[in-house]
C-alpha cells in the first residue's frame, strides 16, 4: 500500500479512460472542400452542356423540314438514284430505266401513283420485263415533294416540262390511300394507263397464309409470354427501341430468336419470348414478318447529321475500315436474304442501340463478327447520323417469297 501511495496518484476507479478526438488534418478538410466545390461547378457546367445539347438537337430537328424544301434534282439524287442510277439508266435485269420510260411520258398520275404505292410485281419497260419491287414513298415524302420530284423526272427523262401540281398528288393520295403496292404493270395499266398495255400478268407468289397458330403467337402470345404485336405493333412496324420487323428476311428473324436463346444477343424480354417458342414457331414467325408490308413510322429523332449519315451509308469511310452499309445490306438498304437484314425505315433509337450493343458485346451474333469492327469504328455522332438517315428511307417492299426455303435456319 505504501509504495502505492508514494507513487503517482492512482486513477479514480470510476474514471473511464477516453481519448480526445484527434482533429481531422486541415489539409484533408481543404481537399474535401475543394472537391465539393468542384462537384458543384461540374454539375452546373454539365447542366449547361445538357441544355446546349438539347437546344442544338431542337435546332437540328427544326432544320430538317428545310431538307424537304429540296428541289426535284436533289430529291432525285437522294431518293431514286441509288436504284435507278444517277443517269436514270436503271440496272440491267433488276431496276427499270427512267430515261425513255413510257411510265413517265404519259399521264403524270402514273408516276405519282407509283411513288405513292410502290410496285410489287412484274412490269414491262421498253420491251424488258422487270420483277419489280419498289418501295412506297407515301410515308416518307410530302405531296409537295412528290410533285417536285415527278415534275423533275418528267422534264429530265421524258421531255415533259409542264410542272405537276401538289394538289394532284393530294387528290391521288386520298384516292389510293391504304392500298398495298401495285401488282405489277398490269394493275397500273388497267387502273391508270391502258396505253401501257400489254403488261406481264401478275402471278400471285405462292404466299403461304400464316396459319392460325402463328397468328395466335403474334396477337395473343403463348406459354406465358407476350404477343409479338404488343410491342412490335399490329403491322410489325415497331417504335423507338423496338425494331420494325416487317419485311426483314425470314431467316434473319429466326436466327435472332435463336440468338436470344443462346445468349449471343442479350435482351431480357426477348429471351423470355424466345424460350417460349419452338423451332418451328421461330421459323413461322420469320416467314410471317418477312411478308408484311407496313408504311414507315420511323422518323429521325437522334439529332444526327443526315448528310453525314447518307455518306456513311452510301459511300462508307474506307480509311477507317467502314464499308458503305449498302455494300452488304443492299442498295437502298432493303437487305439481302437471308443473312443481311434490311435497314431502311428502321427506328433510329433501335439502330443506334444495336450499333452500341456490338461495341459493348451485348450483341455478338453478327455473321463472322462483320458488324463488330464496323460498329467500333463509328463514333457516337456517326451512329446517330446513320440511324437517322436510315429512318428517312422508304420501307422495304415485300419480296420474301424469293427467299429459298433452305436458306432459313
Amino acid at each position, binding site marked *: 500500500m505504501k509504495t502505492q501511495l508514494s507513487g503517482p*496518484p492512482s486513477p*479514480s476507479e*470510476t*474514471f473511464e479512460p477516453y481519448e*480526445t478526438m484527434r*482533429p481531422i488534418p*486541415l*489539409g484533408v*478538410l*481543404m*481537399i*474535401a*472542400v*475543394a472537391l*465539393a*466545390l*468542384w462537384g458543384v461547378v461540374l454539375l452546373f457546367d454539365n447542366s449547361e452542356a445538357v441544355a446546349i445539347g438539347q437546344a442544338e438537337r431542337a435546332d437540328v430537328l427544326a432544320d430538317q423540314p428545310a431538307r424537304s424544301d429540296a428541289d426535284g434534282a436533289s430529291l432525285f439524287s437522294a431518293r431514286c438514284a441509288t*436504284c435507278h*442510277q*444517277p*443517269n436514270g*439508266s*436503271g*440496272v*440491267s*435485269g*433488276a*431496276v427499270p430505266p427512267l430515261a425513255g420510260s413510257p411510265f413517265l411520258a404519259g399521264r403524270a398520275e402514273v408516276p405519282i401513283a407509283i411513288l405513292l404505292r410502290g410496285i410489287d410485281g412484274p412490269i414491262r419497260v421498253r420491251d424488258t420485263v*422487270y*420483277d*419489280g*419491287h419498289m418501295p412506297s414513298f407515301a410515308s416518307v415524302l410530302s405531296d409537295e415533294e412528290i410533285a417536285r420530284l415527278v415534275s423533275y423526272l418528267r422534264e429530265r427523262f421524258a421531255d415533259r416540262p409542264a410542272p405537276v401540281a401538289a394538289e394532284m398528288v393530294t387528290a391521288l393520295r386520298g384516292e389510293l390511300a391504304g392500298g398495298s403496292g401495285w401488282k405489277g404493270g398490269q394493275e397500273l395499266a388497267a387502273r391508270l394507263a391502258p396505253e401501257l398495255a400489254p403488261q406481264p400478268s401478275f402471278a400471285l407468289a405462292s404466299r403461304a397464309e400464316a396459319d392460325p397458330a402463328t397468328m395466335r403467337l403474334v396477337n395473343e402470345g403463348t406459354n406465358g409470354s407476350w404477343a409479338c404485336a404488343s410491342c412490335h405493333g399490329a403491322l410489325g412496324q415497331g417504335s423507338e427501341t423496338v425494331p420494325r420487323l416487317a419485311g426483314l428476311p425470314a431467316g434473319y428473324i429466326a436466327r435472332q430468336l435463336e440468338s436470344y436463346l443462346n445468349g449471343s444477343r442479350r435482351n431480357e424480354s426477348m429471351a423470355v419470348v424466345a424460350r417460349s417458342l419452338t423451332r418451328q414457331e421461330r421459323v413461322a414467325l420469320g416467314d410471317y414478318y418477312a411478308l408484311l408490308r407496313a408504311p414507315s413510322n420511323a422518323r429521325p429523332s437522334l439529332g444526327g447529321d443526315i448528310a453525314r449519315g447518307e455518306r456513311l451509308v452510301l*459511300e*462508307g469511310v*474506307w*480509311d*477507317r*475500315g*467502314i*464499308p458503305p452499309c449498302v*455494300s*452488304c445490306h*443492299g*442498295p437502298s438498304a*432493303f*437487305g*439481302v*436474304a437471308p*443473312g443481311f437484314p434490311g435497314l431502311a425505315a428502321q427506328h433510329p433509337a433501335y439502330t443506334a442501340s444495336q450499333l452500341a450493343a456490338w461495341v459493348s458485346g451485348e450483341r455478338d451474333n453478327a*455473321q*463472322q463478327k*462483320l458488324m463488330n*469492327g*464496323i460498329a467500333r*469504328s463509328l463514333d457516337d455522332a456517326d451512329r446517330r447520323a446513320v440511324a437517322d438517315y436510315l429512318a428517312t428511307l422508304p420501307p*422495304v*417492299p415485300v*419480296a*420474301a417469297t*424469293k427467299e429459298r426455303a433452305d436458306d432459313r435456319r
Partner: protein
Amino acid sequence: MIDDDRISAEAQDSPKQEGAGRAVRRGVIALGGGAALFVLVSMAFDLGWLRDRGEPVKNREAPQAMHTFFPPGEQAIPDGPAGDAIKRGQAIFMNTRMNAKDFVGNHLSCSNCHLDGGRKADSAPMWAAWVSYPAYRKKNKQINTMEDRIKGCFTYSMNAQNSPTGGAPPAGHDVYKDLQTYMHWLATGAPTGKKMLGAGYPELDKPAGGYDPARGKLVYDAKCAVCHGSDGQGQRDLNGRLVFPPLWGPDSYNWGAGMARVNTAAGFIKANMPLGQGNSLTDQQAWDAAAFIDSQERPRDPRQKGSIADNAKANHGGDSYYGKVVGGRQLGAGTK
C-alpha cells in the same frame, strides 16, 4: 476521490469550450483553404500544367490511313463538260454492265475489284494506275497506253467476248474517254511516274508450304460464303440486283484476267476481304482461298487459238490453274 472527480470534470469541460472556438476557426481555414486549392488547381488546368503529357491519343484511322494520297471525294466533281464526263466515267465504273453494256459479258463492275470507286489503296486504285501509264506490259509485250490497259480489262475481267458486240470497245470509243476522265480526276495531285504507296494489290510472299485449294475451301466456307454464296455465284437483292459479285462460273471474270492468277487474287483478298476486315486473314489463308476460287471453271481465255495446253504454255506461267487437272478435270475449257 471526490476532488479527483471534480478536477477531471473541469478538465473535460474546458477543452470542450475551447474546442468549439477552435472548430470554428478550423472550419474557416478549411473553407478558405479549400476554395484557394480549388482555384489553384483549376488555374493549373487552365494553364495546361496538369494536362496529359503522354503520347497523343493515336488516331484510330492511323493504321489504314498510312497512304499519303487522298483522291478527291464525290462532292468535288466540277460542273461543266469535264464534270459531266467524270460523272459518266464514274457511272461506267460503278455499274459497268448497264453503262457499257455493249462490251460487258458478265455480271461484274470495275468497282467490284477496285473498291470505293477506284479510290481504295491496296485495291489497285485508279489514282495510282493513272500515273503509271503508258507502260510496257509483259502480258502483251508492248507499250500500253491507258486506253490499251482498259481494253484489257474489258477483254478479260469483263469477259467482253460474251458481250452483245463480242469484244472490247473499239479504239477511241467514248467509254475509254469517260473512264479516263474519271481516272484522271481521281489522280488529281498525284505524282506522275512515281510508284505510289498503295498502288496495285499487295504482293504476298508465297507460303513455304505452297497453297492448297482443299484448304482454301475451308477458308472460303468460313469467311467468304456468307456474302459470295457457297456456290460462288454471289447474292442478289429482292429486285434481282447483284449485291455480291460472282467469283467463278459464267458471270465472273475469264481465264485471261489478272484476278485468275492465284498470286493476284491472294493479294487482293489479303488486303481487302472480308469486306471491312481487310488484313484479318493470314497470308496462308489468303493464298489458299485464292487457290480455291481460281481453281474453279470460268469463261474461256479469249487468247486461246489452239489447244488449252498450247495456250497454257503461251500465256499461263506462274500461279495459274489454267490447263491443270483439278478433281479429274482439265481447267480452261470455259463455261457455257
